[in-house]
C-alpha cells in the first residue's frame, strides 16, 4: 500500500511547517482518496491536531476522502477530547 503522506513521530508547534507544506501538496495533487500513514505518530499537541483538522476539513470541501492508517490510541484520544473525531473521520477507530 502506497501512502500519500506519512505523519512523523512528533507533531509539535515547533516542527509543523514542513508537514503543513506536505499536506497542502497532497491536498492539491493527491487523489480523491487520500491515504495517511499515522503508524509512527506517538506525540501530538493541540496545534498539531488543529493542522490535521483543517487539512481534513479542506479535503472534505474539495470532495476528497481522508483515510487514516495505524491511528494510535494517543491520536484518537486527542481527537475525541478536542471534539475532532467526527471532523477527522476517526469515530470508528
Amino acid at each position, binding site marked *: 500500500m502506497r501512502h500519500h503522506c506519512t505523519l512523523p513521530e512528533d507533531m509539535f508547534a515547533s516542527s509543523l511547517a514542513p508537514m503543513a507544506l506536505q*499536506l497542502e*501538496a497532497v491536498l492539491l495533487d493527491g487523489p480523491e482518496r487520500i491515504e495517511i500513514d499515522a503508524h509512527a505518530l*506517538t506525540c501530538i499537541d493541540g496545534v498539531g491536531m488543529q493542522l490535521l483538522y483543517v487539512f481534513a476539513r479542506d479535503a472534505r470541501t474539495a470532495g476528497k476522502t481522508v483515510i487514516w492508517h495505524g491511528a494510535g*490510541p494517543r491520536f*484518537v484520544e486527542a481527537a475525541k477530547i*478536542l471534539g475532532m473525531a467526527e*471532523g477527522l473521520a476517526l469515530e470508528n477507530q
Partner: protein
Amino acid sequence: MELSEFITPFFEESFEMLLQLEQDLHALHDGETAAMAARLDSVFRVVHSIKGGAGTFGFSSIAEYTRALETFLEDLRAGRQEMTPTVVQVMLESVDVLREMLVAERDGGQVGQEAVHAVLERIRRSIARESLSSDKQEEMSTAQPPVISEQPEGMRCELEAEAGDNSSLTAVRGWRIRFRPLMGFSAQGSDPLDILRDLSALGPTRSRVLDEGAPSLHDLVPRHYYLGWEIELAADVPREQVEDVFAWVMDQSELTIEPLGPSSEITVADVSEMIEGTEPLEPTEVSAALPDSPSTDHLPSTTDEAVEAVEAVEAVEAVEAVEAVEAVEAVEAVEAVEAVEAVEAVEAVEAVEAVEAVEAVEAVEAVEAVEAVEAVEAVEAVEAVEAVERLELAEVAEVVQTSPNSLATEESVLPDESMVLSEGVDRLIEELSGPLREAAERMQSFTAGVREGLAKQAERQAEVLGGLTTSVVELGAGAHRQAGQLAAAGDEAGELCTRLEQGGAAVGAVFECAEQARLDAQGLAPVLRGLDELVLQAGLLRVHVTVEAARLGEPQGKVLRGVANELRALAEQAAAQVAEGKALVRSLLAHMDDEARQLDKAKGQLDTLLPEAQAMRERIVRLKGTTDTHANAVESAATELASLEGAGPLQADWLDEAANAGRHIEAQAEGMRRIVQELGASARR
C-alpha cells in the same frame, strides 16, 4: 504587580515540588503499590503545575519538556504504560534534568540538549515498546476508553438518584464552556488539549470545535491557534473548580462559563454515551420510596393503622419540607449564578469599554483639539473685548483728565461732580475686577485641566501605540524572515530538481552502458561454441591416436598411447575451462539483466519524482509571493502606527498654546486692573 515579580516564587515552589515528586517516585520504586494511584496523581500534578507556570513565563523549553513527561504520566495513570522499576528510574532521571533546566532558566545558563534528548528518547522508547503495535492499540482502545475517565462512583449514584422514570430525558447539572485561545497562546507553551483533558477529569465532557474564521490550510500559520471549543461538562462541581482548569490561560483566551440550565441538552442518556465503555444508566424508582398520600377511602381502623397513617402524613410533610428547602436553595443557587453572570457581564462590558476607551481617546483628542482651537478663538475674543474696554477706559480717562480743568473753572458751579465721577470709577473697578479675575481663573483652571487630561491620554496613547508598533514591526520582521526562508526553500527545491534531472541522465547513461555490456557478453557465445568444437576435435584426435597405437602394436604403439593420454588430459582440462567460462557468462548475463531491470525502475522513480519536486517548488514560490504580500501589508501598518505616534508632540503644542493664552488673559486682566486703579486714583485726586 508585574508578572516578573512572580518568577522568583515560581522557581522556589518548583524546586520544593520537585523534592516532593522525588519522594513519590522513590516510594513507587520501593513498590508501594497500595497508594500507587495517589502517588501518580501527585507526580502528575507537580509536572502539570510546572508546565503551566513555565508556559506563563515563556520558558518554552521547560514547557515542552514537561508536556512530554505529562503525556508519559497520562499513559501510566490510564494503565496504558506499565509501572516498572525501569520506568521509575527514567522518571527520576527526568526530574534531575528538569531541575537542571529550572536552574539554568533561573540563572541564565544553558542545559546540555544531549541530556534532555536522552531522557526524552528513553521515555519515547518506553512508550513505543508498550503502545506502538496497531493490534495492541486496537485492543486497548476497546478495553480502556481513553477519552473520558471512568465516572466517579459518587457522580453515578447522583445521576441515578436524579434519573426517575424518564431518565433519558432528565437534565444533568453541569457547565457549558466556550473557550477560544488568543494570538500568542501557543507561544506561552499552553495547549488546549491539556486543558480539555484536565476538564474531562472533572466529569464526562462533550466537545465541539468552533472553526468559524479558521483559514484554509494554505493560509494557516501552523503555530497559531484559530479554532475554539464549546464544551459541555456533565459534572456538579463548583464554578471555581472549572475556572481552576483555565487558571493559567485566562489572559490568553476568550472564556465563558455558564451553567447548564433546566433546559440543558445533556441528559442522563447523553452522559452514558459520553462515558465510553460503560453501560447506559438504568432509571431508578426514586419516587417508589416515598409514602403515598393518605386517602379518605382508606381510613385507619386500628390504633396501629392510625399511627402509621400519621407517620405517613408526617413523612410526606417532611419530604415536602425538604423539597421546599431545596427549592429555596435552588432559587438561591440560580440567583447566585445570575449574580456571578452579572459580574461577568459587567466584566465583559468593561473589557469592551477598555477596547472602546482606546478608540475614545482618539475621539476625545479630536474634540479637545477642537476645544483648544476654540480656546484660542475665545482668547482672541476676550482680547477684542479688552481692546474695546481699553478704548472705553481711554475715553473715561480723557473725561477724567479734562474734568479737573472743568472743576478748576467751574468748581463753584459743580462742586459734587468729581465725587460722582470718583464713585463711578470705583464702581467700574469693582464691576470689572470680579469678572476679569474670575475669567482669568477659569481660563487657568480650564487650561490646567485640559493639559493634565491630554497629557495622561497622550501618555496612554503613546504606550498603546508603542506596544502595537513593536508587535507589528516584529510581525513584519517575522513575515520577512519567513519569506526569506521560503525563498531559500524554493532555491533548494530548484537545486533538487536539477539534481534529479542530472540523476535521471546519469541513470540513463549507466543503463546504456549495461545494455552494451550485455550485448558484449552475448558476443562471447560464438567464442565459447568454437572452444567446444576444439575440445570435441581434441577428443576425436585422441581416439584416432589410440586406434593407431593399437594398430602399430608394441613398442611403437606405446609412444602413441602416451600421446593419446596427454591429449585426453588436455581435452578434459579444456572442457572444464569451457564449462566454467559458459557458467560465468550465463551468470554475468543474468546479473546484467537484473541490473538493467533495477536501473529501469530507478529511472521510472526519478521520472515520477521530478515533476513532484517541480510542483513543490512552484508551490513554495507561490507561498513566498503570498508571504511577501503579507509582510508588505504589515510593514505599511507599522508605518501608519508610527505616524500616529507623532500626533503626541502636536497635541503638546496645542496645550502649550492654550496655556500661553491663559497666561496672556491673566496678564491682560492684571494690566486692566492696574489701569482702572490708576484711573480711580487720578479721579479721586
